């Protein structure tokens, strides 16, 4: 029998479940878990990405698995969109699993075997989400994903902060899941058939289609962490162990993007123009909010979590633009915007995973997450520092790395949007482009702060002198992801060919082969309009650098004298003279002051031990969440009055209920 791609993916899924089970069997055998099971998971991820790559180029495959409730088999489907996301999940998780093989240590929170179980179930459930072709299996996989990641987040459950982060996470996941369930309810249009195939056949009227779309935006937006549903993300992502943070930020968030694309461009047969406008505005708000908050963070993992919010915002902008163009029948522009979105999904998966893994190595070497107590680590851990530098440059959207290509494509689709029929939108688009440019520039600021405070300068604490570099497994994992960032930056013309089948499936148009000129140039609309050739670009810079270095060496000399820093002649240069994370974020705090709720503790001139502290929070917690929480508490108290604790009262309730039921039935 010929095995289809889908069968191979299912085999990988089964393999992951086997690894998970093996983890339970060797609960406390640390060596087995870290040296055998996690690398095996990494290999499975690699295999998955290879299979998905092949599946991307072949057609759609469907299957029905006789599992689940009687009469409700699991429908599976592997099409272009699913294959693309599976490829990213596989490739990113391969690097993360390799890193995890060297990361987990004995005697930290959950036993290693249990972590292995949760980790691989988490991975398997993400594959399930992507493969599902009916609402039931989708929801089962979605909830398994939320639950397994909840247990991973609370791996260090002895810390109260971690427990409350987990609680917040699972609450938001719950609310989001309800919205998604309701969305599927709307999409099946009273036919009672919850397969996606049936949903594709329904021609909903604009009201119900919009209702379904809004529910999907709410549900998937809660998972992606868009404003104002973002509160859980900066708590939960940093609380988890670093490989899990990487998996959540770099990989899991993409499932939300996948879900929204699936619902809006595949399941829904109509597209209204204002959906795109709404996504655009939500995305812009999220991106700006995320990057502004990222730049003032003082905890390295929280900073990255806010940066994830920013990137999700950018992805929403890309999707909004796609929907906007698609609803006005501008397929080529829609394809360009969608390509930019999908490209950014891939590059975000690479650089965000890489950065979170880097924080993991730093955390292990120093036991310190606060930026204010790090510094100078490039001299202690050069491997990690240079890998993280690649991630930092990609994250800041600088050429010639992966982040820039996505940004470039997105700006192209903004710029060459031909006049839209709605004048308001025509005006909105340049403003949106300006905000995107601002967000990209602020991301650069944030990343300079992130890298500079952790790795550069002088160590701010004594103990940092003992910091050790990452082990071989950790280096391999980071090397894989850094390679991904560089490859995505240098080979956009090749990678866009992979996105082509996806855009053809969703918006019936692709920019793939037409976007290549002269072999290496990326030019979606022709060379005279816009072109970008990263290889030539890099070669140009390298040639200039090499020539300059060579000429300086030949014509002059290469002598260097080492000495104390000059520092304008100040005799004493101590680590405390450097900018702290708070200091580096200060201009942003001042410029974007209305964004923040700030609590400052300023020392008086007479303090013997002066201490300066500033805490920054956002307004949403006080404006939106606290009132909601108070309302829930109030309602719960009202209901609590019914519970008197006396058996007679409860019997009376039962009696009254029975009576009411009887009356209702008799009528």
């Amino acid at each position, binding site marked *: 029998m010929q095995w289809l791609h889908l069968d191979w993916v299912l085999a990988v899924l089964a393999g992951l479940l086997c690894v998970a089970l093996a983890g339970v069997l060797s609960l406390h055998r640390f060596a087995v878990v870290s040296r055998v099971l996690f690398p095996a998971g990494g290999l499975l991820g690699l295999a998955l990405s290879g299979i998905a790559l092949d599946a991307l180029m072949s057609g759609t495959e469907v299957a029905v698995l006789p599992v689940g409730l009687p009469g409700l088999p699991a429908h599976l489907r592997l099409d272009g969109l699913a294959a693309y996301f599976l490829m990213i999940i596989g490739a990113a998780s391969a690097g993360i699993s390799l890193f995890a093989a060297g990361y987990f240590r004995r005697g930290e929170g959950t036993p290693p075997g249990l972590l292995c179980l949760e980790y691989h179930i988490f991975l398997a459930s993400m594959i399930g989400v992507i493969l599902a072709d009916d609402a039931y299996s989708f929801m089962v996989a979605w909830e398994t994903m939320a639950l397994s990641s909840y247990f991973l987040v609370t791996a260090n459950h002895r810390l109260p902060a971690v427990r409350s982060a987990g609680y917040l996470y699972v609450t938001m996941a719950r609310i989001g899941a309800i919205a998604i369930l309701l969305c599927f309810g709307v999409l099946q249009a009273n036919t009672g058939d919850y397969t996606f195939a049936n949903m594709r056949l329904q021609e909903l009227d604009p009201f119900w289609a919009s209702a379904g779309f809004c529910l999907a935006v709410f549900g998937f937006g809660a998972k992606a962490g868009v404003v104002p549903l973002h509160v859980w993300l900066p708590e939960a992502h940093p609380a988890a162990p670093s490989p899990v943070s990487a998996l959540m930020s770099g990989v899991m968030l993409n499932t939300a993007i996948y879900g929204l694309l699936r619902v809006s461009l595949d399941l829904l047969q109509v597209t209204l123009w204002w959906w795109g406008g709404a996504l655009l505005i939500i995305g812009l708000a999220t991106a700006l909010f995320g990057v502004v908050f990222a730049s003032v963070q003082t905890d390295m993992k929280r900073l990255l979590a806010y940066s994830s919010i920013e990137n999700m915002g950018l992805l929403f902008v890309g999707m909004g633009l796609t929907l906007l163009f698609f609803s006005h029948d501008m397929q080529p522009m829609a394809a360009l915007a969608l390509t930019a979105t999908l490209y950014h999904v891939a590059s975000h998966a690479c650089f965000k995973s890489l950065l979170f893994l880097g924080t993991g190595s730093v955390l292990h070497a120093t036991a310190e997450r606060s930026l204010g107590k790090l510094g100078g680590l490039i001299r202690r851990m050069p491997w990690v520092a240079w890998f993280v530098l690649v991630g930092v440059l990609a994250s800041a959207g600088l050429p010639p790395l992966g982040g820039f290509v996505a940004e470039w494509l997105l700006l192209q689709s903004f710029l060459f949007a031909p006049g839209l029929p709605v004048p308001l939108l025509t005006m909105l688009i340049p403003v949106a482009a300006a905000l995107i440019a601002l967000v990209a520039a602020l991301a650069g600021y944030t990343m300079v702060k992130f890298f500079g405070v952790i790795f550069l300068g002088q160590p701010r604490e004594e103990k940092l002198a003992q910091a050790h570099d990452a082990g071989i497994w950790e280096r391999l994992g980071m090397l894989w992801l850094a390679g991904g960032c560089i490859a995505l930056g240098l080979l956009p013309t090749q990678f866009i060919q992979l996105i082509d089948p996806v855009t053809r499936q969703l918006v019936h148009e692709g920019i793939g082969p037409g976007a290549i000129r002269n072999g290496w140039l990326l030019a979606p609309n022709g060379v005279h309009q816009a072109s970008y050739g990263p290889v030539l670009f890099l070669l140009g810079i390298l040639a200039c650098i090499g020539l300059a270095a060579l000429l300086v060496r030949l014509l002059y000399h290469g002598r260097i*004298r080492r000495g104390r820093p000059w*520092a304008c002649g100040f005799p004493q240069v101590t680590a405390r003279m450097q*900018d702290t994370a708070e200091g580096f974020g200060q201009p942003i705090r001042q410029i974007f002051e209305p964004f923040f709720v700030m609590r400052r503790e300023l020392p008086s001139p007479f303090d013997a031990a002066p201490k300066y502290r500033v805490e920054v929070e956002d307004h949403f917690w006080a404006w939106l969440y606290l009132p909601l929480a108070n309302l829930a508490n109030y309602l719960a108290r009202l209901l609590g009055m019914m519970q008197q604790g006396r058996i007679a009262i409860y019997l009376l309730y039962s009696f009254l209920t029975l009576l009411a039921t009887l009356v209702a039935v008799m009528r």
Partner: protein
Amino acid sequence: MNLRSIFTQLLELVLALALAPLLTGWINQCRAWLQNKSAPALWQPYRLLRKLFYKESMVADNASLLFRTTPYVVFGTMALASAIIPTVSTNLPLASAADAIALVGLFALARVFLSLAAMDIGTAFGSMGARREMLVGFLAEPALLMVFFSASLISGSTSLTTIVDTLSKQELVIYPGLAFAAVAFAIVALAENARVPVDNPSTHLELTMIHEALILEYSGRHLALIEWASSLKLMAYLCIGIALFAPWGIAAGSTPGAMLLALPVLVFKLGLGGALLALLETLSAKMRIFRVPEFLATAFLLAVIGLLVHLLLVRP
């Protein structure tokens, strides 16, 4: 890509490398005249470069590899930037590798590396300079991008050579959008090149310096490369200004006659631009650092208004 276009490309690069210190010297001279000082010689920057190249480089004990490679990276990026901006001809093979957006990215790359290198030693000045440089950068960068977009909307392209070709072939039309963009560009150019009123290239007063604080730890050949790169950047900005707002005279092809004509035109325009810059610097006073964000936000808003005005007036 033929031999002639490669020759044009090399000519542009060599021209930029050779002329950039001269431009800096010219601006210094103009400034001195306007301020009633006796001016240094026109080739003073070359002397400075020569002196610095011969000197030994002092490097702090704890400097990492990043610190030592950054001058080369900054020099390389600036050299590439001046190679892709059309100055005497638009027949540039390298220009197809990087359009206006990539050019802005190139400047950002140099800024990020310079800021990181400044933080590497861990002195108070270095990190202060890095913070301020990034502060100026994150407002100036989007403004510059928006200025490019104004020109892109007119020419329907983000490729610099196409923009210049389109704009220079048109009859003299004043685009209101481009007028807003020109004001925004002037502000960005002042800020990005560390000129008064944002920064002062000749200051070493600790509390006010931005660019000088960044490069405080560099000496010898490293400093020479960075100074040369700064001259290149200044020239690149003036050339961008010429390309966007006064592109007449830039040759479309690579015929020797057209380029021979384009060269004196370029020198004349650069001289005029430099004198104008010196005048602007003399007429304005240095701002407090807290006012700089407002100043740059003005540029950003003007550039966005320029885009909107263009869309309002010139509907396709």
